[in-house]
């Protein structure tokens, strides 16, 4: 008698396993349906690599940075394991979002799977929380300042912002207690939430069956017809075991891809966190770029719209989507308003992420090469440009701040007289211009500066 038989006699396990593996899936379930299991696989990789990283990582301000350095430089496979954790973190976000998009565009969140969608969106929120808390742990400059900015943004929540920010940080500043908190969130609290939500999500999928792709008769399904149409669709589909082959192939391919990324690019570690820097330019992780870029559109007192209202209302809307989009149409072509709005929103987020990724280099780096080519007079103009802080807001040849117009070709756009008047007193030339004036700049220096700007064509 095999162990399987022995267990089966006591637990009836064989029937359970067979019911699980050989259940029929609806017609046309295919590659797009591997996105969810790919996300699950990546989360499992995160749990495995995360557990192993915790053998060496020390969550204290004195030792965090050193222990990450030690993992990366001294431990065999250390750079690889850390790299894998870092790259799979990005891939989890990508695949969770792709999975969400598949479910959205195929109407899979509709009756009777509304609760699966809600749990899924909560899972997406949990994944972002993992990203935000995990980012601090290496305690380098990137980690520290992204957390300073992130908690400043939390402060914008009307009424409760100050309290929320303090609870996150464990006090008034990002410091020793913030690291302890983020560590506890990242390795204990969030994993508990993640595992519970994943278990619920999977239970629902298995209990209700995979959503039928909206093809043929299933493009529009009224509630009362759902049961019958679903059973009919299942008769024509494959078994789960056959589908598992696709899941397995995707998982292996992803692991190989992530391993390659880890070996090729590793995980960066900047200088150790320094709260008193005057030169560091904070950047969030790429999947928060769209929020960071959104800040450009809402200056001054409007900042709260980008820091609080859009993220909060956007998340709530996403969470409750099944209760807004509740018609019987499932095919994306049968509900053009929802599909169109989704596509526009998605393009916006992708565009903002692209803007974030293409953000110019901060001013003051690698400027030697640019200056070397210039004649003495133009070089002097360049020096004034730098001394006046123009590069804080303006870009020349891909370098500088993005607040003001790109000046790389300003010489062919404006004549010297206009430039001179504008730089001196921007508001006199263009009322409402956000550029600060330069009335204090000597006439001679202004001429040199304008000659330099004129040379940019």
């Amino acid at each position, binding site marked *: 008698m095999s162990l399987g038989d022995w267990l089966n006699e006591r637990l*009836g396990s064989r*029937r359970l396993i067979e019911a699980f593996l050989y259940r029929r899936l609806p017609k046309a379930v295919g590659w797009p349906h591997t996105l969810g299991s790919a996300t699950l696989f990546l989360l499992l990789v995160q749990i495995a690599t995360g557990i192993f990283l915790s053998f060496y990582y020390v969550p204290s*301000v004195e030792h965090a940075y050193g222990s990450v350095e030690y993992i990366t430089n001294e431990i065999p496979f250390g750079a690889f394991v850390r790299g894998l954790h870092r790259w799979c973190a990005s891939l989890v976000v990508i695949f969770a979002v792709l999975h969400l998009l598949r479910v959205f565009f195929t109407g899979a969140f509709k009756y009777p799977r509304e609760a699966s969608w809600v749990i899924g969106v909560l899972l997406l929120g949990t994944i972002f929380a993992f990203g935000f808390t995990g980012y601090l742990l290496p305690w380098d400059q990137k980690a520290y*300042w992204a957390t*300073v*900015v992130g*908690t*400043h*943004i939390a*402060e914008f929540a009307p009424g409760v*912002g*100050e*309290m929320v*920010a*303090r*609870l996150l*940080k*464990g*006090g*008034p*500043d*990002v*410091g*020793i*207690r913030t690291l302890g908190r983020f560590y506890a969130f990242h390795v204990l609290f969030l994993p508990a939430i993640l595992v519970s939500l994943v278990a619920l999500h999977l239970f629902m999928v298995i209990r209700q069956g995979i959503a039928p792709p909206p093809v043929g008769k299933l493009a529009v399904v009224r509630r009362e017809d759902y049961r019958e149409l679903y059973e009919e669709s299942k008769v024509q589909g494959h078994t789960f075991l056959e589908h598992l082959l696709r899941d397995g192939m995707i998982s292996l391919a992803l692991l190989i891809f992530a391993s390659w990324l880890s070996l090729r690019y590793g995980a960066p570690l900047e200088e150790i966190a*320094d*709260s*008193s*820097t*005057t*030169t*560091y*330019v*904070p950047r969030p992780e790429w999947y928060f770029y769209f929020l*960071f870029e959104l*800040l*450009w559109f*809402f*200056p*001054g*007192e409007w*900042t709260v719209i980008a*820091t609080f209202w859009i993220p909060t209302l956007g998340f709530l809307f996403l969470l409750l989507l099944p209760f807004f989009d509740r018609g019987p149409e499932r095919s994306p072509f049968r509900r053009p308003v929802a599909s169109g709005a989704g596509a526009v929103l998605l393009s916006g987020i992708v565009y903002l992420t692209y803007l974030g990724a293409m953000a110019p280099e*901060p001013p003051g780096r690698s400027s030697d090469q640019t200056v070397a080519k210039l004649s003495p007079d133009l070089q002097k103009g360049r020096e004034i440009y730098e*001394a*006046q*802080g123009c590069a*804080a*807001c303006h870009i020349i040849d891909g370098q500088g*701040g*993005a*607040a*003001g117009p790109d000046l790389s070709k300003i010489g062919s756009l404006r004549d010297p007289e206009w430039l001179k008047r504008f730089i001196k007193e921007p508001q006199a030339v263009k009322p409402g211009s*956000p*550029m*600060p004036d*330069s009335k*204090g*700049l000597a006439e001679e220096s202004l001429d040199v500066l304008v000659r330099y700007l004129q040379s940019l064509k």
Partner: protein
Amino acid sequence: MSNVENDLASLPPNRRRFITTVLGVISGAIAATLGVPLAGFFGLPAIRKREFVWAEAGSVDRFKVGEIVFVLLKPLKRPVWPEEAPKLGVFVSRKADGSFDVFHNHCTHVGCPINWNSAIQRFFSPCHGGVFDKEGRVLAGPPPRPLDRHEWKVEDGVLYAGSIYMVSERLERVGPYHS
């Protein structure tokens, strides 16, 4: 398997209600007994008002009138462990009337570390193009309010920086810095 029949009928509604109520009370008692201390443990250290801690910015003679310099604050004493004092940098501006402005180094937009450009007497924030003048007023960019500042005092020729507060556009104090 799966043949566990439930037997609703054998349990009269009154008794069922009684049992669920008692179970509810028990759950509530467990949640409160565990939850109150744990919530306090988690939250109270974070929101407790910190004792007023002065930190040394340096001898007054170090600061020349009209100049703005960046200094690291030296905490007077290192309090018990969890109140570990973070290393703070401030911009000190000594004004003609003998008073000081001690600026916090986080931009008031989303907190990026500002820098001082002495050639044109302006503060710059590197993230979204915030520009402030030497008194901390917003000149350009998205910051919603002037630079936050530390309270200050001079004792025996030494400048000390205290807690941080926010100011209005007219540079009048509007309340404690919220974090």
